[in-house]
């Protein structure tokens, strides 16, 4: 979803940081994307190449770090692994799950010059 907007936001961060961190070119971008974040990674890669054309991040490599989904199961009283927002608890079958990790979309670090 909206991968183009996400890439525009990423480029804005890269441009802002270029002044603060004193770099002129971005070679690699590491992103942490949660499996529950609703981001289609292939669409993100495609959009990233389009958005960064002619920018300081042109031809930069995009490295995606998949972050696992995790939720707190109320009946079990512990964290369990989930792949989808509609998953049931793998231990007790309850849907009383509060997602507490795996919905993040973060720029983690950059390789720059």
């Amino acid at each position, binding site marked *: 979803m*909206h991968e183009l907007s996400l890439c525009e936001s990423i480029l804005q961060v890269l441009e802002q940081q270029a002044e603060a961190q004193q770099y002129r070119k971005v070679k690699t971008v590491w992103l942490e994307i949660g499996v529950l974040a609703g981001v289609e990674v292939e669409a993100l890669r495609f959009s990233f190449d389009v958005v960064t054309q002619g920018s300081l991040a042109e031809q930069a490599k995009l490295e995606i770090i998949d972050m696992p989904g995790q939720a707190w199961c109320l009946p079990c009283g512990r964290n369990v692994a989930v792949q989808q927002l509609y998953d049931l608890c793998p231990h007790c079958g309850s849907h009383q799950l509060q*997602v507490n990790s795996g919905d993040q*979309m973060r*720029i983690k670090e950059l390789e720059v010059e």
Partner: protein
Amino acid sequence: MCGICGCGESHSHSHDHDHEHPHDHSHDHEHAAAHAHAPGLSPKRMVQIEQDILAKNNHYAAENRHYFGERGILALNLVSSPGSGKTTLLTETIARLKEDIAITVIEGDQQTARDAERIRATGVPALQINTGKGCHLDAHRVGHALESLQPKHQSLLFIENVGNLVCPSAFDLGEAHKVVILSVTEGEDKPVKYPDMFHAADLMILNKTDLLPYLDFDSGQCIQYAKQVNPRIKILPLSAKTGEGMDSWLRWLKAELELQGIVYA
């Protein structure tokens, strides 16, 4: 609100860049010398960023939330697929509530001002945002809409998002609640097919219940799917057309106004 706005950004940005060029140069030298890096090269290095991709939107959303809090405005973000009956729900709600509290509407659509015109016909101010190629409203555009709309203190603001069950789920606009509208003509499995939106919403309105006798729609199954995706979600079945169930929706709105300390007649 736009002391921090990105609107003039590209202009000042290119300006800064030209300007700082000679500065950058001398800086580089000092830097290289201090760290004894290979001189003359521009070495690759790592920079830790640790920044949320949506940080900018979230920053504007926080500004909007502060704006609503200061003025006593209950802001609701209405989301759904196209054709679920959001605008009809709004015009019917406004007709029942406009004597009790000041209401303002922000309308998001890709094109045309049709929805804003329908809202204005009810006698309340409405502003249309056309997103063009965009698939969702973002907090920045909503912030600008607030500047021109100037909603009253102690009022109710509806933001009718672009009809889309996917993208608007990720963009906080500063609202108190996302309200997802699902019409019974759409199929009971929408909550599990589009889980992000139902996960992000606090209230689900099951609209067009007057059509239930003509459909195979299984309301119980639909509610179960919605609860599976989001155990906290509240559900109100209604028909904006016949008015059945509208009272419960109005009671929910009034309870929310009270919880925020907003005065209504």
